[in-house]
């Protein structure tokens, strides 16, 4: 399956991916409305790495694990791996118990701003394309086949 890969050496830390993630997951799909009117948690987030010489960044999002702990921890059956291998959260079934957050080893799941469901990367399948990948100004986020990633 294709997954989103963040290339640390290219990331500028501009956080545009977060902006577009929110847009893609908004009701309006409009960048201004998504930020001004809808309160959405981004499913991709920039993490800072501070060393003595420099600050660098990388973008983190759900890894759609082969053996996802969040799916097994989910008490309601809301978290599932679909036939394409994408780990998804059914917001209608989610009771926001945070069991998934307790076990995700990457910290890639966040409690939604409304507190009612959790938010995580779904590769934007409903939107049609992964907007964070498309909008990254430095091509630091790529949608790649798993085996291809290993070669780079």
């Amino acid at each position: 399956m294709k997954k989103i890969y963040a290339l640390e050496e290219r990331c500028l830390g501009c956080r545009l991916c977060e902006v577009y993630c929110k847009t893609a997951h908004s009701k309006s799909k409009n960048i201004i409305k998504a930020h001004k009117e809808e309160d959405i948690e981004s499913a991709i987030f920039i993490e800072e790495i501070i060393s003595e010489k420099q600050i660098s960044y990388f973008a983190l999002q759900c890894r759609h694990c082969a053996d996802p702990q969040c799916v097994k921890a989910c008490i309601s059956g809301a978290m599932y791996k679909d036939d394409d291998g994408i780990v998804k959260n059914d917001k209608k079934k989610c009771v926001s118990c945070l069991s998934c957050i307790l076990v995700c080893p990457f910290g890639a799941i966040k409690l939604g701003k409304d507190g009612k469901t959790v938010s995580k990367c779904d590769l934007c399948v409903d939107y049609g394309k992964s907007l964070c990948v498309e909008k990254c100004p430095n091509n630091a986020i790529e949608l790649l086949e798993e085996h291809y990633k290993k070669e780079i």
Partner: protein
Amino acid sequence: MRYLIVGNSAAGINAASEIRTKDSVSSITMISKDTFNTYGRPLISYYLNNKIKPEDIYYHNKDFYIKHDIKVLLNSEVKEIDIKRKKILFCTKTKHNNDILVYDKLLIAIGSNPILPSIAGLDYNYTNVFTFLSYEDSIKLKSSITRTSKVVILGAGLIGLKVAEGLAEQVKNVTVIDLSDRIMSSNLDQASANIIQKHMENHNIKFQLKSSITNVNNTHNLVTEVILSTGDIIACDILIIAIGVLPNLNLAYKAGLKVNKGIIVNEYLQTSNEDIYAAGDCVESVDLLSNKKSVFALWTSAANQGKIAGENMSQGNHSKFLSEFAMNAISFFGMHILSAGVVNTNLQNIQSVTMKCQSNQLCRLNILNNNLVGFIMINENKRAGIYTALIRNKTQLSSLAYDITNHQNSNVGFNVYSTTERKRLLDLANIKI
């Protein structure tokens, strides 16, 4: 191949799914005394206070069983396993005769039963005495309460407190009684228990700690009052017993399988009979932190074991179940609690670091010899999953790029790991363990 799964909760359903992904042709039958298809057991309290609709309690929709060709026999209690002839004897609620099913591989995933202490004057057949472990229990309880109900709950553990939360806004009063000096004594330390207790008291729940019920008064086969060890008398028209659970071992024991605290299994979750596996709350596992044999009544653990047992039943033994440790995510009236591992800070040599402590928020890490061994978080979840992984992997804290006990680093997430370690962990995500 005929796969038979006894029990239809977290372990059973995950085993069935896993078997089907590995074997598309063989027959898979789940048999359970439950009336309902697999449901999210922890959701029964959400049903109690109408936070979910009845149709949303189910773990999978009905199409799942058709799509994966999994046969389910409900209302059917397995009475006996004949390990020599590889068949089971079961009895359905509507029939009086026993029926027989044969198997090639069997999974026992029948969970646990509530502990029912003997209390003077109390008969568990009284219609106002309840336990709270199944959807049926929750339905029965919900239909029995009224606005004027005076509810007494024995046990301030996860189950007791979830019932208390579920009932608080629907009845006149709720009193929770526990022998311990704090609520959720196996999941929380004193400071965190105090925060949660206060929060629950603000929602009309009363607590009587360091107390037990010595006897109950009854009239016309109904409990009317409970008498506490402190001498207090509490009026009661609904009594709920929630002091804990014990693994359901009868079936395994009668079949001659080895049992101890739970059913004894090897690392592949195979019992002392090679064609019978066991998973979930009825199984004895090893506690990663204490190295002691222990029974975990945890949804995550049961789901995980079910999946591994299913894989081994269909593929031969190659997937190992590693040791487990206690962890819980639970919330009361909007207050979220995440805890894992060692929570008792009084243990020798444990260094307890409090990152945050306010009236409604807490983050406490328990460290032993350069390893994180436990944590408690209230209304805070940043890094929770990373902490859990640090415990599971016994990661040396000194190998991390950041000091997790330093407040200044509290915004650091997955980058607590060094660059090389981060890359290694990210690659691991693609590999099926």
